[in-house]
């Protein structure tokens, strides 16, 4: 018997078992769940298209002016723009990266390497998981309590120095509040990254006489770096898009006249605003001046560009390393 005849026999055999019955219910089920996915993606598409269309009148004619302009009382003002919001959001990102990142990575390494599987670590992890689920407005209350109001704890631990240091309702307070908000995200993603380090690498380092901290520094951190970076980028994008805590901490839109350069750190303890806050304000002002709806859409395009850039970098980074190490 040649190979070709085996092939035909096998083929005949297969068709013999096949029933020519269309699977109606199965097809319907598939169609229903597929439509759920399609609707979700359509909503995303409509959202993006609608916003860009609304924003077009601002962005097509005066994109650069819009990026450099400031808050104005009329939407047709030549100097209308989001620079003050960019300033606030930029520095919030800086504070998140410079505080939540080191603390988060340190905590993750402690939980995974120093106290792994201890009862204390389990307790701290429980706390972190619950912190991750606390609504963002509640973090706003914490920021208000810690950094803005001159509070005292149990009547004797004064926190007035914190309010003095941050300047009250300032970018500094907002940045620290959001750093606290994203800390659980940074810790959880960093923990996953640290956990994924092969134990062979760690044992190799110990075998060569490395101490724990040397092992962490030379093996764990380099290997886990992409994962940690991904988590930090996601956390920064979350922080930049967050508005509720900023409202509680006291971001403003009225009477903000200063329009400093991005890197001008002298405004960190002053009254401030941020991109999401400007969007909220302009949406509410569209009743008085309908042109603000388009201005709000344009501000959204700027915010989405920032947030999606951070998100996509994070997702691409993760996928690349997952594939590489597969």
């Amino acid at each position, binding site marked *: 018997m040649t190979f070709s005849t085996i092939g035909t026999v096998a083929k005949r055999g297969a068709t013999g078992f096949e029933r020519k019955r269309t*699977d109606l*219910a*199965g097809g319907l*089920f*598939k169609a229903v*769940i*597929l439509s*759920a*996915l399609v609707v*979700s993606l359509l*909503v995303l598409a409509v*959202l993006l298209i609608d916003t860009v269309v609304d924003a077009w009148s601002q962005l097509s004619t005066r994109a650069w002016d819009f990026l450099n302009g400031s808050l104005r009382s009329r939407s047709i003002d030549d100097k209308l723009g989001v620079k003050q919001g960019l300033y606030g959001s930029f520095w919030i990102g800086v504070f998140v990266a410079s505080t939540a990142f080191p*603390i*988060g*990575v*340190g*905590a993750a*390494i*402690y939980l995974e390497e*120093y*106290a792994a599987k201890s009862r204390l670590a389990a307790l*701290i992890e429980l*706390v972190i*998981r*619950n912190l991750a*689920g*606390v*609504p963002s*407005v*509640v973090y*706003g*209350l914490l920021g*208000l309590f*810690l950094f803005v109001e001159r509070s005292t*704890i149990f009547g004797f631990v004064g926190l007035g120095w914190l309010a003095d240091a941050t300047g009250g309702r300032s970018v500094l307070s907002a940045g620290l509040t959001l750093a*606290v908000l994203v*800390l*659980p995200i940074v810790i959880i993603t960093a923990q996953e990254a640290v956990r994924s380090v092969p134990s062979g690498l760690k044992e190799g380092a110990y075998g060569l006489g490395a*101490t*724990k*901290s040397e092992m962490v520094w030379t093996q764990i951190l380099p290997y886990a770096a992409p994962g940690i970076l991904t988590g930090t980028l996601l956390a920064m994008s*979350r922080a930049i*898009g*967050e508005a*509720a805590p900023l*409202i*509680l901490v*006291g971001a403003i839109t*009225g009477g903000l006249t200063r329009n400093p350069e991005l890197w001008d750190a002298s405004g960190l303890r002053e009254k401030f605003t941020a991109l*999401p806050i400007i*969007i*909220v304000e302009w*949406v509410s002002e569209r009743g008085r001046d309908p042109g603000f709806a388009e201005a*709000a859409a344009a501000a959204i395009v700027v*915010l*989405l560009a920032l*947030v*999606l850039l951070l998100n996509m970098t994070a*997702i691409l980074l993760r*996928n690349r390393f997952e594939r590489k190490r597969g």
Partner: protein
Amino acid sequence: METPDSVRGSLSLAALAGSPRRVRKERLISRVMFCAALVSVVVSALIIYALFSEAWIFMRDVDWSSTWGELGWFPRRGIYDMPTLLVASLWTTLIAMIVAAPLGMGAAIYLSEYARPTHRAILKPILEILAGIPSVVLGFFALLWLAPNVVAHIGGEGGRGSMLTAGIGVGILTVPLVASISEDAMAAVPKSLREASAGLGARNAVTTVRVVLPAAVSGLVASLIVAVSRALGETMVVFMAGGAADAAIRTYSPYDGSLTMPSAMASLASGTDQVVGEGLTFQSLFFVGLVLFLLTLGLNLVGDRFVNRVREQY
């Protein structure tokens, strides 16, 4: 054979312990790491302390008759009708779940059971992009697109916000959350169960409905609980598209505008006069925050338990 003193010395226990300087450095580093881990605990304690201490002043000094059975929520005039906020929170959360549960679970089932790996690799990141969209953007979209194009066709008014509009917006926001937790739960179901079912001649749909979904049920429940907690705490969408500013009259119709717990907090804190008003206005912020915190904490703990159940089973 006699070992030279120098060699014997280097092999002693003291030598293996490392130089005192190195040991001290190690101890210092491990303490620093411990402090970093402790930050979260301190933050939790501070949240709880801040909420309780200010809410306590409210609970001690408030005229309790003003918190129940009033016309509505008018914090700047000393009227804190909690049912107003609770009813609004219930409506928006319910509507959000009506939107998010079918969409999120459907998407999860498709991605987990039907999609080819190549499609999955494209579709999943897109859902993750939806998850990354800030809530102010959803608020804008709900108010300016959903209200005139969707809500106006199901009995609502297109020109302004309402709990229905806000609820749909919050629902869209929670779709990715439901999808990702549900998908994780289905991914945890062992392949052997699916293969056994297919081996008995079950169609793909039957395998999914009769085998995979029941096996993953605690994860699916968890995804809903976590989504409810998220929807209860969502602020900006309701603040922008909920159809009420500063104050709200109690209403049981989702077509009306109202304030949920978080949006009431945001509206109290926003505006030119910040948090001022009648004596307890500032403390009422913390009281509402405490109620919201306890509700979401309870839901998250229950949700966590369900998630762990899936993990333990397989």
